[in-house]
Every structure is written in structure tokens, then in C-alpha cells.
């Protein structure tokens, strides 16, 4: 695996701020109001023998945007003067909505999408069954009311659920916890 932990990142020399700064400007193809860095999809940018190695992780296994993300990162870095770019997928640890930054959450809310609450705890062993209505809460991004209900746990993209505000009746999307 090429997954890097915080501990072994120290072994590779960083390019300095520039390559990382360029990569951090690239936006998500499906949520263009957020950068890949805001989403926690951009895992690492480092120098490896003169090549910019960028690591990204898919939000969901079926994320159809990975190819576009890879091309956008390569394109942005080429334009910024980095000719050798290697974008690698890392699968482990699996992406979590807890990795969405505070800035990313602010941008989501400003864009009318309710940000996720804390992700379910990751445990080993069997996954308990949940049969009741989902207990997630999300405030309406339009009027701010906390009185909202889930319409469907699946939305227009893999990472979003659909909710409705009981106060202003506006439907809205919610990045679901994973």
C-alpha cells in the first residue's frame, strides 16, 4: 500500500508551499464550491525524486469523479510549472466526513448544503443493525431551523442525503455521515 501515515510523511522532503498550495486550489468536480483539500480527499503532496506525488482518496468506492480529479490536479500542477506529477489513489484509511475541514463545512452551509455531523464510530466486529428512523439532525441551511426531516438517505450524489425543513418547507441536501 502507498498509504502514508503522519509518522512516515516526515521521511519525504516537501516541495515547500508551492506544489501543495497549487494542489489545494483544485476543486471537487461534483461539489465545486469546495476544494479537494476542504473535503479531505487530498491526502498528501510531496516530492519524490523530483516528481510531485499527490495522494487522493475516493469518498465512496463508486465515486465517478476520481478520473476528473486526477486530470484536474495534473493540469493545475503542469500549469504551475511542475512537469512531473504522479497522482496516486490511497484506499486506506477509508475517507470519513470527519475529514471535511471547518472551512469546507462553512462553504457547504453557505452553498445551501447542510454539513455532516460526527461520523459513526468505527468499530471492529459485526456492524449493529439500525432499524429505527435515522437520528441524524441537520439545521436548515435556508432558515436555520433545527426542525428538519429526512426525505431519503440517498441523494443526487453518493455522499448526500435529502432532507426537508419543517419550518420553511424548503428541501435541501445534507452531506451524510460516513
Amino acid at each position, binding site marked *: *500500500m502507498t498509504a502514508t501515515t503522519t509518522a512516515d510523511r516526515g521521511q519525504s522532503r516537501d516541495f515547500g508551499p508551492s506544489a501543495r498550495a497549487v494542489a489545494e486550489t483544485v476543486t471537487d*468536480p461534483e461539489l465545486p464550491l469546495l476544494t479537494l483539500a476542504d473535503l479531505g480527499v487530498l491526502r498528501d503532496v510531496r516530492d519524490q525524486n523530483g516528481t510531485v506525488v499527490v495522494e487522493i482518496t475516493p469518498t465512496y468506492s463508486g465515486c465517478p469523479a476520481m478520473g*476528473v480529479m486526477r486530470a*484536474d490536479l495534473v493540469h493545475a500542477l503542469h500549469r504551475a510549472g511542475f512537469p512531473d506529477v504522479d497522482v496516486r489513489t490511497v484506499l486506506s484509511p477509508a475517507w470519513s466526513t470527519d475529514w471535511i475541514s471547518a472551512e469546507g463545512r462553512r462553504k457547504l452551509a453557505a452553498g445551501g448544503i447542510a454539513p455532516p455531523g460526527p461520523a459513526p464510530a468505527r468499530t471492529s466486529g*459485526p*456492524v449493529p*443493525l*439500525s432499524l429505527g428512523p435515522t437520528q441524524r439532525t441537520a439545521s436548515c441551511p435556508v432558515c436555520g431551523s433545527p426542525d428538519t426531516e429526512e426525505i431519503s438517505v440517498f441523494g443526487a450524489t453518493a455522499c448526500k442525503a*435529502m432532507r426537508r425543513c419543517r419550518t420553511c418547507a424548503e428541501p435541501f441536501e445534507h452531506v451524510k455521515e*460516513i
Partner: protein
Amino acid sequence: MREETVYDALDHAHGGEGQWAFGTGFDEPLAGVDTTVPTGIDPADLGEYCLMLGDDALVLAQRLTQWVTAAPELEEEVAVANTALDLLGQARLLLARAGSVGALGRSRERATPSIPDEDALAYFRDPDEFRNTGLVEAPGGDFGQTMVRLLVAATVRLAVFAQLRTSRDPVLAAIAAKGVHELTYHRDHAARWVLRLGDGTPTSHSRAQAGVDAVWPLLAEVFSPTDVERRLTAAGVAIDPAGTRAEVTAVLTQVLEQATLRVPAWPADVPPRGRTGQHSPELTTLLAELQGLARQHPAATW
């Protein structure tokens, strides 16, 4: 090189020769992932096992996709399509892992050389080369039966994936760890539908019960390990499906009882069928739909 559109950028990134028209083309799911096989693991067995898990997901995704434009309500159509997309993503990762250890069989001879391994496996294998269980290939029936089958298939797969998180193959372990979160959503969503339908109107109850009765016999082969699974379980790579029986039985019993549905007699175990390439004619029909266009135009690009 001018790159004015996303297509230009993608095309440039892949040599500017156009993309195969039917598959995944631009996006390699294991790009940059270390696919070295740890010592002591037989690559042929690992590849065969990844085909089993990958084919389960690919075939079930295709079955679920058949509901698109036909689901009872728009929100549910989106949910079914989302579930299928997650499974398709798992299938891509697993077929790519199978390809990375050379488990390509005759597919590579039939497919155009530029087509990625995962697509060669998905589009250019014949039915007897598929390794999915009969549970996922049976026609979906009505919406109630579809949700019962999804409940059963997701419960089995989640139990398997939860244990595979500690597989000695780090790629398989990572795929499983990611899949667990997705499968939890699938299982619990299907379970809530079974509750609503079972404990709903007399019509929804009787149709959900008919779905249960139709799906239950398909469990007969699910807990029977193949020789490949036995060897890989001993090597710390796979899990023996028999070891998931207690969890699967408990989950399904809990859902059905709460849904006021009758739990049928659990079928007696039979030797593995789908895992060894023995399939129903329905798989041939399904694959004809899935593969037909790609096989008629194997070199088409866009």
C-alpha cells in the same frame, strides 16, 4: 498541449488516443496503489477470490440498475441507483485487484489490448467464468422481493466484509474497510423497507412474504466454502462464509420478526454452485444485456 476542457485534460492524460466507449477508461481504481502480493499468499487463489466478491457486486449492481426509470417513487429510484453505484465501485476495485494478480482467464484474449483489465473481466467473460452466487443473479421480482434480496445480499456481504478488514492482503482489507460503511447503509435501508412492507397493508405484507419465500432457497449455497476460500482462510486472506452464518441468521430473523413476516425454514447447505461457475440461465440473459454492446463494438472509442 492545449487543454481547454475536462475531456481534453483527460484525453491528454491518457495519451490522446480516445477512450474505449463502454467501460471505465479514464479512471484506474488502483492507480498508485501498491498491489504487491504479500508472501505466503497464492496469487491465483487471491485472484479467484476477488472475482467471487467482485462478481457478486457487479451482478447485483446490474440487477438494481434495472429499477432505474421503474422504481415506485423518485427518491427510491435515486436510492437504488446509489446502492448500485456503490456496488459497482466495489466491483471495479475487486476486478482490478483480480487483474493485478493475473486472474484474467480468457477475457484478455477476447478484449482489445487497450481496454483495462477490470473492463476485460466485466465485459469479456462468459457466464461460466463468473463466480457470483445465485443469490445475486436471480431476477429481482417485484419491489418487495427486490428489497428482501437486497437485505439478504447486503447482510451476507457486510458480515463478510467486516471480517475481511483484517485480511492479510492489504488491498483486499482496504476495499473491505471502505465497503463496510457503504454496505451498512444498503442493509439498513433495505431492512427499513422490509419493515414498512411487512408491517404495512395486507397486500404489501403478502407480497413481501412472497419475496421472502422466493429468496430464502437462494441461501443454500451461500455458507458453503469453495476450496479456494478454505485455502485462503487458512492463509489469513479470506474468511470462511460458514463463519458468517450466526450473524446473518440473527440479523435476518430480527428484521423479519419485527416486520411480522414468517421466517421460512433455513435451507440445507449445498456445495458451492455459482462460485464454481454453475449458473442459472438468468445470468446469461443479464450478461447479454450488460456485455452485448461492448462485444459487438470491442474497439469503439469516443
